[in-house]
C-alpha cells in the first residue's frame, strides 16, 4: 500500500505519484523555458537585422528615385514615376442611403463602418472596384510613416476570427509565421512594398478603425478635385491619416 517515509508515517501512494509527476512536469517546463529563451534571443537578433535591412532598403529606394529623375532631366527626357502598387482607402460616408452594388463592394473591401481604413493592392480588378465606390471613399498612396503609425498605433490582427491587438511580435508570428513574417517590421515591409504575401498580410490586419479627422473634412459630397474629399487624393492621404490616426 504505502511506503515508510521520513516521519515514519505511511505515505499514501497517490501522493508519491503526484510528487513524481509534479517533478517531471517541473523539469519539462524548465527545459522548455530555456529553449524558448534561446529561440527568443536568436529571434531578436534576426528581427533586428531584418529591421536594419529594411531601413537601408527604404532609404535606397528614395535615393534611387531622385537619382533616376536627375538622370532623365540631364538627358532631356522624362522619368515617369512608377505607378503606386498599393493604396490606403478610408470610407467617408455612413451606412444610410446606399445603392446595393456599392454597398456590396464596400463590404468586399471590408469597409463596413465610416472612417474605416484598409490597405489595397493596385490592379485592374481593384481599380475598377474603387471606381464604382468613389463617392463613398477617399484613397491615396501612403508613405512609410503612415503605414508605420497605423500599424503600431491601430494595428490589430485576426487570430481565430478574433481581433487581437498587435502588442508583441509573437502575435504576428502566430498569424503569419508560415509566410516568413515574424515581426511587425516584416509586416510593415510586406504591406509597403506589396510583396508576394501582401494578400495574406493585409487580410491578417483587421480593418483600421480611425477617429474622425481633427480639423474636419472639406466637403464629403464632392470629389477631391472639385474641392471636396472623395476619390483619389494621391499623396495628400498622408496628411489625412495624420489627422485621423
Amino acid at each position, binding site marked *: 500500500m504505502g511506503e515508510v517515509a521520513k516521519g515514519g508515517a505511511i505515505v499514501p501512494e497517490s501522493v508519491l505519484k503526484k510528487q513524481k509527476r509534479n517533478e517531471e512536469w517541473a523539469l519539462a517546463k524548465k527545459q522548455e523555458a530555456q529553449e524558448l529563451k534561446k529561440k527568443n534571443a536568436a529571434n531578436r537578433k534576426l528581427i533586428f537585422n531584418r529591421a536594419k535591412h529594411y531601413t537601408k532598403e527604404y532609404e535606397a529606394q528614395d535615393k534611387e528615385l531622385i537619382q533616376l529623375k536627375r538622370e532623365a532631366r540631364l538627358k532631356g527626357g*522624362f522619368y*515617369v514615376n512608377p505607378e503606386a502598387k498599393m493604396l490606403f482607402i478610408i470610407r467617408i460616408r455612413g451606412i444610410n442611403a446606399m445603392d446595393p452594388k456599392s454597398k456590396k463592394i464596400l463590404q468586399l473591401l471590408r469597409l463596413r463602418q465610416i472612417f474605416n481604413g484598409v490597405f489595397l493592392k493596385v490592379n485592374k480588378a481593384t481599380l475598377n472596384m474603387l471606381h464604382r465606390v468613389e463617392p463613398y471613399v477617399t484613397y491615396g498612396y501612403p508613405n512609410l510613416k503612415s503605414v508605420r503609425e497605423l500599424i503600431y498605433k491601430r494595428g490589430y490582427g485576426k487570430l481565430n476570427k478574433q481581433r487581437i491587438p498587435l502588442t508583441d511580435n509573437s502575435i504576428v508570428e502566430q498569424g503569419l509565421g508560415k509566410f516568413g513574417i515574424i515581426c511587425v517590421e516584416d509586416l510593415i515591409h510586406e504591406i509597403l512594398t506589396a510583396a508576394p504575401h501582401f494578400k495574406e498580410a493585409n487580410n491578417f490586419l483587421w480593418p483600421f478603425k480611425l477617429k474622425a479627422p481633427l480639423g474636419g473634412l472639406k466637403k464629403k459630397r464632392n470629389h*477631391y478635385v472639385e474641392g471636396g474629399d472623395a476619390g483619389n487624393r*494621391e*499623396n*495628400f492621404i498622408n496628411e489625412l491619416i495624420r489627422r485621423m490616426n
Partner: protein
Amino acid sequence: MSYKFHQFQVVGRGLPTETDEHPKIYRMKLWATNEVRAKSKFWYFLRKLKRVKKSNGQMLAINEIFEKNPTTIKNYGIWLRYQSRTGYHNMYKEYRDTTLNGGIEQMYTEMASRHRVRHHCIQVIKTATIPAKLCKRESTKQFHNSKIKFPLVFKKVRPPTRKLKTTYKASRPNLFV
C-alpha cells in the same frame, strides 16, 4: 506670403500603341491649388484639345513654377474665359503685383466679388507681363509714376491673418495715422 493658387507645368502624352509608337508630348502651364488638382485640370483641357483621356494617357512630369523675380513690381495682363449665368465671355484684366501667382489670386477674388464667378467657372487663357506703356486699364496706369506720392488718410489696424480676427474688441479702433 502663401498663395492659394500655384502655377504648375504639366507634361503628358497618350499611351504608346501599336500604330503610334511615340505619341506627341504635350506641355501645359496652369494654375491650381495643388498637384492633384493640376493633373485633373490638365486632362480636362487636353481632352478638349486632343483625342486623349486620362485612361489612355500618361502623366510624364509635373513641376511647380516659381516666380523668377518676386521682388520687382510688374503689370500683369490676364486673358480669361468665364461662364456667367447666361453664357461664356472672354475678358482681359490687368493687375499690378510682384508675382504672377499673386496677380492670378487677385483676379480670382475680383471675378468672384465683381461678377459672382466662382473659380471653377474661370479658365485662364493667357498671361503676360505688360510694359507700362501698353497697359490699358486706368486703375493700373495711375500707379505708373516714379515719383508717386499719396497719403494714407486713415490707418485701420487689421489682424495679419483672417484666422486671428475676432468679432468683439475691447476698445474702439483708432484710425490715426
